[in-house]
């Protein structure tokens, strides 16, 4: 396929791998975190670990939107659907995230709740238009990539006077999560970040500059294709070797320093920062998520239906928190692959194929067989 195959070329991958192997210094480790689930998926899907020397280690970050959604947020959506009888719309994997009382949105649906899987915010608007007698709530999740389409939907609903549409806003911010990972007391054993692809097309490369300037961690923004990831790893190894920490952009075909200004304006018009937001794995992180501005409060399902957020602790055996912070590997969790599998996820990292645990389970678990 043109414009895709070029970025999946096995020969080129071997060349980059040879450079990484030659340039990585044997007397040290390179601990690199790919923040995004999209990168986690690419690394696992293409078996990139096999192309890296053992001292270049990839650590999966928290950038999987459904993985960082805490139980209490899913509970909120389930309550809306079951107790208030709304049509609850959301993106694919979200319906499988485990919630309280052994429920998930999918299980709530089987018990009679009206939960609908949609591909786009436009689908949610369409459902609202077609069901004027019902309340339609869109569970809006995701990082900066999915936020602009939500903003468009809210503005459209306002313009059309669509009174039966509202959103449960769980949009979160990438730089805030990276701060949370780095701000751990005593520092973290990370040598650099593979920076997000799609998120960066929206926010640009500028917001990552503090991680290089203040924390001294190199960041290389990379596309989601396997060669992008390999090239970014090589660029990170070089920065580490040269003792540099800069924001570099491997994904120049889509990312600029300023990002998509139009999308940023749109988001700023509709949303404002929450004071704090609870993430699964990272706990409460200040200024890390968005809520609707007062001007659009009529579309805020939390206010409209008075469903408060109630924090719920994760399953005690679940290590999602440590895994999302890059402190543990999936296979170090006691319930990984036994009680917790993609078919019966206990923790959120096992839900989406972008989650660290699901990716390792689905693509990499043969590595422990030896």
């Amino acid at each position, binding site marked *: 396929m043109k414009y895709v195959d070029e970025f*999946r070329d096995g020969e080129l991958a071997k060349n980059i791998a040879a450079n990484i192997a030659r340039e990585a210094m044997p007397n040290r480790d390179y601990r690199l975190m790919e923040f995004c689930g999209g990168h986690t998926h690419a690394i696992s899907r293409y078996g990139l670990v096999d192309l890296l020397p053992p001292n270049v280690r990839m650590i999966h970050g928290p950038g999987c939107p459904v993985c960082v959604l805490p139980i209490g947020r899913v509970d909120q959506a389930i309550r809306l659907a079951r107790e208030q009888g709304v049509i609850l719309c959301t993106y694919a994997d979200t319906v499988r995230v485990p919630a309280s009382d052994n429920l998930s949105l999918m299980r709530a649906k089987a018990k009679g709740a009206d939960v609908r899987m949609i591909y786009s915010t436009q689908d949610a608007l369409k459902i609202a238009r077609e069901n004027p007698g019902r309340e339609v709530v869109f569970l809006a999740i995701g990082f900066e990539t999915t936020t602009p389409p939500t903003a468009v939907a809210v503005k459209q609903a306002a313009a059309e006077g669509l009174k039966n549409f509202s959103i449960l806003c769980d949009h979160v911010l990438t730089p805030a999560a990276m701060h949370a990972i780095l701000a751990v007391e005593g520092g973290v054993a990370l040598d650099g970040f593979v920076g997000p692809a799609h998120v960066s097309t929206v926010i640009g490369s500028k917001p990552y500059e503090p991680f290089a300037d203040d924390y001294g961690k190199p960041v290389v923004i990379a596309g989601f294709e396997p060669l992008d990831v390999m090239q970014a790893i090589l660029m990170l190894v070089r920065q580490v070797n040269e003792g540099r920490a800069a924001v570099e952009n491997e994904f120049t075909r889509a990312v600029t320093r300023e990002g998509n200004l139009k999308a940023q304006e749109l988001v700023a018009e509709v949303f404002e920062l929450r004071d704090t937001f609870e993430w699964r794995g990272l706990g409460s992180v200040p200024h890390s998520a968005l809520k609707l501005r007062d001007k659009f409060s009529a579309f805020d399902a939390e206010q409209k239906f008075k469903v408060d957020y109630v924090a719920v602790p994760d399953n005690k055996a679940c290590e999602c928190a440590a895994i999302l912070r890059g402190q543990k590997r999936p296979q170090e969790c006691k319930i990984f692959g036994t009680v917790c599998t993609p078919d019966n996820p206990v923790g959120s990292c096992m839900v989406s194929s972008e989650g660290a645990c699901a990716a390792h389970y689905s693509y990499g678990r043969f590595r422990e067989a030896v």
Partner: protein
Amino acid sequence: MTSGVKPNYTRPLDIKNGRVDMSHGSGGRAMAQLISELFAAAFNNEYLAQGNDGALLPQANGRLVMATDSHVVSPLFFAGGDIGCLSVHGTINDVAVMGAQPLYLSASFILEEGFPLADLKRIVESMAKASREAGVPVVTGDTKVVEQGKGDGVFITTTGVGVVREGINLSGDLAKPGDKILLSGTIGDHGMAILSQREGLTFSAPIVSDTAALHGLIAAMLDSGAQLRVLRDPTRGGLATTLNEIAKQSGVGMMLQESAIAVNQPVEAACEFLGLDPLYVANEGKLIAICAPEDTPHLLEVMRAHPLAREAAVIGEVLEDAHGFVQMTTKLGGRRVVDWLAGEQLPRIC
């Protein structure tokens, strides 16, 4: 003296504008009329003509194979086929991959009140055509009608019976380390034809379902004399799920070569666009064969000589592996597990 009873007259079915109503499933005259004017007319064969509750069939020579399959595909009509021919091909293939020659089919229809008779006729005629082309008659059937909103147009269940000749033993538990894994052609065509139509995606070249009856190809493969261990058609769950089923049944592992697995370009593009992996997308006209290594070159030649397997290829090998992992060497040169499908990737695909 002439009788005063007027001769029977039944107004013919209004195929053009008529719709299924509850009386078509009542067991009364309306149902009898639907059966005779639509179903019996299309399927027309000596067994159906017996007009009894069941078909009386001649003695079969060999072990019997029986398989059944329900079809709930949405949309009912798609590029490359419709629910009618799909319901014939699907069941014939399930019988044929057991190494059997398919002989007879039954067909059971659940119709939704309000379904246009014109669409029903199109579906039934497509079924009849597929059955005639395959040489496997529909010998008995049933029709039920459910109220509007309780079905989705039409659901079709077909059951097939076939006979296995002496000396043929195919089973999912017979794969042995060292055996080769063959695939008859490209993957993902059926699932992506359905999904791209559902999502209104258009590509430069349309995606066409591969729905086809495979018993002719399978007969040629059986006649080749190759030591075949397993045949399977990778339908729902795709190639990945079917290989995992075989690995589990046989207690073996597998190593696949990603570069050997062919995917049509528009299918690849659609998968890319929708974030799907073609390894998990349904096929309706492809088969997997597991064969002793020494017979593989000959088998491959026989397969490639058949119009339904021109692109047949060896895609991997069976390994000894207590964990039963199906693994793959990726195009990038890395290794990964090719796991079972988790959850539901594409509902209502067949």
